[in-house]
């Protein structure tokens, strides 16, 4: 197998805190690995080590076959990075930011200009190309961030929570752009705390919690692995809700959840479905919806870690980006 990113027992400590407690990852060339975990799990630390911004305290990591410590310069030539912390210069225009990076990675001035306008067009930023980026909206900033990480045509792209704080429309747009990059052969390592994002974009997912990978596989494998499937029943008449509830509780042997008109419960036995149908039919209940689904990644995460994935999300967001939203500085 041809791996673009490999880590072996990667360890990183900050004083007393162990941010990475021996992380093993392998990303096949041309695929997307979703690094999924709550805030403080170690996702950003992992990306910073891989992007040569932090030296690991133990284990090793290679990018495109090059060691991130001993061959850092070559690694930097292969990667692009975008995220909450790797930012563009707010006092430069969008075009100037891209031009600067082009020049820095060794392009002659005309090539750098050409590349900048190419990327500005791709990310629909032509109209704002001449404006200082501090005037950009959040979505425009993220698009420019992504464009900036692509100037040097990286083979491997690190996206650290690329859509945190974006509105749904901007998020969909960014997802589409990531998909196009992958179809062009770029390998992507994506960190996210949005399960939906990992589910949509990633070929493989590594679930990380407290500095360790606690599960990995394709999204489908992960869902299947926890065994749980979700039974959902929605009666046509809301008067039937109590009856549905009784039947589901009896057969699933757990207390079902009632959300709006839908009664749902976690089940492990797929042969339960015909029995449910029969019993409801006997009770004269007409169903608007009756389904047995794989658990969502959210449920998977809960069953793997014992705590929900998106707890304290807003709190952590505030501490993580203390100044990102502040105004102009000198």
């Amino acid at each position: 197998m041809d791996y673009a990113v490999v880590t072996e027992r990667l360890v990183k400590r900050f004083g007393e805190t162990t941010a990475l407690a021996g992380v093993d990852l392998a990303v096949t060339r041309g695929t997307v690995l979703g690094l999924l975990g709550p805030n403080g799990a170690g996702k950003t630390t992992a990306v910073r080590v891989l992007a040569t911004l932090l030296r690991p305290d133990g284990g090793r990591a290679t990018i495109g076959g090059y060691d991130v410590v001993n061959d850092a310069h070559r690694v930097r030539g292969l990667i692009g990075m975008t995220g909450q912390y790797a930012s563009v210069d707010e006092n430069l225009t969008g075009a100037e930011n891209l031009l600067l990076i082009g020049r820095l990675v060794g392009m002659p001035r005309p090539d750098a200009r050409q590349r900048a306008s190419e990327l500005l067009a791709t990310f629909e930023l032509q109209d704002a190309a001449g404006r200082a980026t501090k005037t950009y909206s959040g979505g425009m900033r993220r698009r420019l961030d992504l464009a900036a990480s692509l100037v040097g045509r990286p083979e491997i792209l690190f996206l650290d929570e690329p859509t945190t704080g974006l509105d749904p429309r901007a998020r969909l747009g960014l997802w589409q752009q990531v998909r196009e990059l992958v179809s062009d052969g770029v390998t992507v390592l994506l960190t996210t705390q949005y399960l939906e994002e990992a589910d949509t974009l990633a070929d493989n997912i590594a679930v990380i919690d407290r500095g360790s990978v606690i599960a990995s596989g394709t999204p489908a494998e992960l869902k299947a692995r926890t065994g749980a499937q979700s039974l959902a029943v929605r009666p046509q008449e809301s008067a039937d809700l109590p009856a549905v509830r009784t039947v589901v509780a009896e057969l699933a042997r757990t207390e079902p959840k009632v959300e709006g008109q839908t009664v749902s419960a976690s089940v492990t036995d797929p042969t339960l479905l015909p029995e449910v149908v029969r019993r409801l039919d006997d009770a004269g209940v007409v169903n608007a919806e009756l389904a047995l689904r794989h658990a969502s990644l959210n449920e998977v995460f809960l069953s793997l870690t014992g705590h929900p994935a998106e707890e304290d999300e807003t709190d952590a967001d505030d501490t993580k980006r203390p100044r990102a939203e502040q105004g102009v500085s000198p």
Partner: protein
Amino acid sequence: MSATREVGRTTGPARPTLLEGLAQTRSLAWRTLVQIRHNPWELGDFSFQPIMFVLLFTYVFGGAISGSTGEYLTFALPGIIVMNMLFVTMYVGMGLNTDLTKGVFDRLRSLPIARWAPMAGRITADLVKQAWSILLLLGIGLILGFRVGTSWLHVLGAFLLVLVFALAFSWVSVLVGIVAKDPEQVQLFGFTALFPITFVSNVFVPAETMPGWLQAIVEANPVSILSDAARGLMVGGPVAEPVTYSLLWAAGIMAVFAPMSMWAFRRRV
């Protein structure tokens, strides 16, 4: 997005060459200077402030201190140039701190560029700003009655000496920029530390007019020594000793603060 990717890149050498590093330094210096276009008030900051100092001291205090404004200006201008140089170095720290807190520095460090290029780019840009404000002060001074007492070659020497000192003192600013939490803290340091250092010197008033204990401090202050050197080169008087001591001070500051900055930098990132 087919345009974003072409043939697989061949991997380059293990580290950038010196020449590449210098080209990257130039690009990064350009970046710092082109910012001024979007932040015109910054230009005002390092242009109007020195002009204001010259006007203020020449016309408010000059008469009382020296009897005539032209005479006072001839005494004070070299020192004002030194004082202004110290304040302008604070831009290195403020800019560096902004880069660190906003994440620009991380982006730069993830690029295949020389490790020293971002710092060198900032300091180079700072030297351009320094040169601009020294020339500006000199020009205003000449208009208001400053007279060169030596030769233009000597004045060029003073110009270069002040730039060398700026280069060394930039490292103090770099350290503050790394340690400070935000750019405002850097600015605060600039005011609270630099004001006493520059005023407890012979920039505005000759040391002889001060009480004995203060004279000792003033004469030991590198700001005084550098001002003496600049005065000697631009107006006349002893040159060899103050220039030598100025260069020694510059070397000493650099020797202490450059390694400390590097150490603080490694701790921060």
